[in-house]
């Protein structure tokens, strides 16, 4: 949490830097107006509604949101690994010139693991408990690059070394249950990097780990980012984590994008009321909370109580029920993207977005 405060101070002190930053790398993946629905199909649950963001080459996009914000589903959609019965019902996912949303499972299978890779949340569950870690990873190499067993195992060992697994040779014949949580996650990271993917999706990779291990894994990811120039989509609910690892941030709420922008800019000048509330509700170590004349402490700001579950709202902005700045039009009109700075986009009527009437 301290890093978050430090970042904000640094960003606040140098506002001009938000627009500079890395020279514009090419766009690697562009999610456009993504829609994901759940049955029943006559009255579907719109879990992801009109979500758009872009990730450039070499950049880490942090997707932040609470549970149910649709952040995991929208990243799973890139790999077309939505848990059934969910379906992509609209939008495009452009990657290397093709629309991934339009591809069949068989076509996606060729891309997965090779050009696109994923790190799951719970390393204990995402490794096959019946196979040694060496065998599991070697199998992937055998399938994608047709390597014979010995060569595959050697490559796995190299990757183990890369991700900081001690004594990599002997680890190859170990089973997942014989490893610690941090070690297992390193194996999962190694698995993602096996075929040098263009894009790595990380779905809350540190949430299931101890805080100290969390820090180690984040260090590792940052190091790999620098060394390999990895492009990453990092999904998390933890503002502190995203402050550390992301270059750009997309904030989501209840299946809609609230705002997108460079990390420094978003932290220094949060635009969307939800982002503002989130950042304000973080306890600050550098702030002393006042005591009023009756001896009561100032309360920690919170995000307002939800009026109704987001998905069953009328069809406008889904944050309207909890928004301290809500206007009557907010629950009727869906806020479109509004550029408030170069590279920053916000979806809020109050901040200048145009509104489109939403359907229920």
């Amino acid at each position, binding site marked *: 949490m301290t890093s978050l405060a430090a970042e904000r101070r640094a960003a606040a002190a140098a506002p001009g830097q938000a627009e500079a930053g890395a020279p514009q790398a090419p766009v690697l993946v562009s999610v456009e107006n993504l829609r994901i629905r*759940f049955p029943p199909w006559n009255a579907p*649950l719109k*879990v992801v509604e009109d979500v758009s963001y872009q990730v450039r080459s070499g950049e880490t996009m942090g997707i932040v949101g609470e549970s*149910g914000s649709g952040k*995991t*589903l929208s990243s*799973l959609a890139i790999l077309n*690994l939505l*848990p059934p019965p*969910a379906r992509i019902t609209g939008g495009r996912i452009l990657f290397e010139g093709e629309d991934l949303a339009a591809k069949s499972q068989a076509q996606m299978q060729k891309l997965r693991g090779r050009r696109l890779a994923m790190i*799951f*949340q*719970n390393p204990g*569950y995402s490794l096959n408990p019946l196979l040694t870690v060496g065998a599991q990873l070697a199998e992937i190499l055998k399938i994608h690059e047709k390597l014979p067993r010995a060569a595959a195992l050697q490559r796995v060992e190299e990757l183990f070394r890369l991700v900081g697994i001690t004594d990599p040779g002997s680890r190859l014949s170990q089973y997942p249950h014989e490893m610690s949580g941090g070690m297992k996650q390193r194996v999962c990271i190694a698995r993602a990097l096996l075929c040098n993917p263009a894009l790595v999706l990380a779905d*809350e990779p540190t*949430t*299931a*780990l101890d805080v100290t291990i969390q820090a180690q894994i984040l260090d590792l990811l940052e190091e790999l980012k620098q060394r390999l120039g990895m492009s990453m989509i990092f999904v998390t609910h933890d503002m502190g984590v995203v402050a550390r690892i992301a270059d750009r941030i997309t904030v989501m709420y209840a299946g809609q994008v609230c705002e997108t922008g460079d990390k420094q800019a978003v932290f220094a000048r949060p635009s969307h009321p939800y982002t503002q509330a989130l950042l304000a509700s973080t306890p600050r170590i550098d702030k002393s909370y006042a005591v009023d004349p009756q001896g009561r402490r100032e309360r920690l700001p919170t995000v307002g109580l939800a009026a109704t579950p987001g*998905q069953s709202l009328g069809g406008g902005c889904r944050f309207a029920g909890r928004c301290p700045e809500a206007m009557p039009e907010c629950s009727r009109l869906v806020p479109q993207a509004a550029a408030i700075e170069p590279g920053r986009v916000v979806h809020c009527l109050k901040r200048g977005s145009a509104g489109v009437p939403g359907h229920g």
Partner: protein
Amino acid sequence: MTDQTLASHVPAPKPAAKPARGIWRQGWQRFARSRTGMLGLALVLLVVATALIGPFLAPFDPQDQSPMLDPGAKAPPSWTHPLGTDRMGYDVLSRLIYGAPTALAVGLGAMAIASLIGVLVGGFAGYRGGTTDEVLMRFTDFFLVVPMFVVILAVVRLLGVAIVNTPFESVPYLNLGVIILLIGVFSWAPIARMTRAEFLRLKHQEFVEAARCIGATSGDILFRHILPNALPSLIVIIALGIGGAVLAEAMIGFLGFGDPAAVSWGQLLYFNYEALKVAPWASLSPGLAIFVTVLGFNLLADGLTDAFNPRAKA
């Protein structure tokens, strides 16, 4: 540490409109929505009804062999004998009806015994833990391994022989009672296992700790807190067990070891199986009756699983 899998991203079903009113009421509402469960309940009620009022409506006395004279043994179904007559001249329908109370007596009686032993053993093992648990579990394993059927046959027969010329011989339905007892004694093991598992799970829950904090005695905790919470799972196993007990008795009767004084479907099969070719109605009817009863209890158990533990089934 969160425990989410991809599957957890499937949104939870919308909450029910009515407020929750205790697990029994909730359970019943869920049960009513289960088609298998309701069908099972219907079948079971059918059997129960037959057992309770059937004997008053049965056209013939089950021991009445007069149809032997007219229309004769092994006669096909007719108006006077809707299910025909069997090999020894009895009216099949009447005997079928009188078989229902026997079946229920066996099912419920055996399971009552099995539940008593099973809950005591399993509950004690689960609650105490440690060496008590180990010892009791080995004991239970023994009963799980032993083939109930094989042993019961031997014991029933030998007992039957042993009481010849003794005062026991005149006790009515002794044979049936022994069968019920034995089935119960060999069926308690799965119940003990389930009870133990539930007790182990529940005794670490916070409400037990809370109860202890306010000074509840061990007995209190066991009977008023833990046991009621273990009941839903137990009921399912017991329902399955009733079906199993009825089936066991049917098989015992089919092999000829049943109680000659009692009318049981298995025995009907035993008497009439030889005549399967010429008088199929006499064998197929009791067989069907057994099937319907066992199916009823199995479906009931299925519905109960739906009601109390919807996540237990895929």
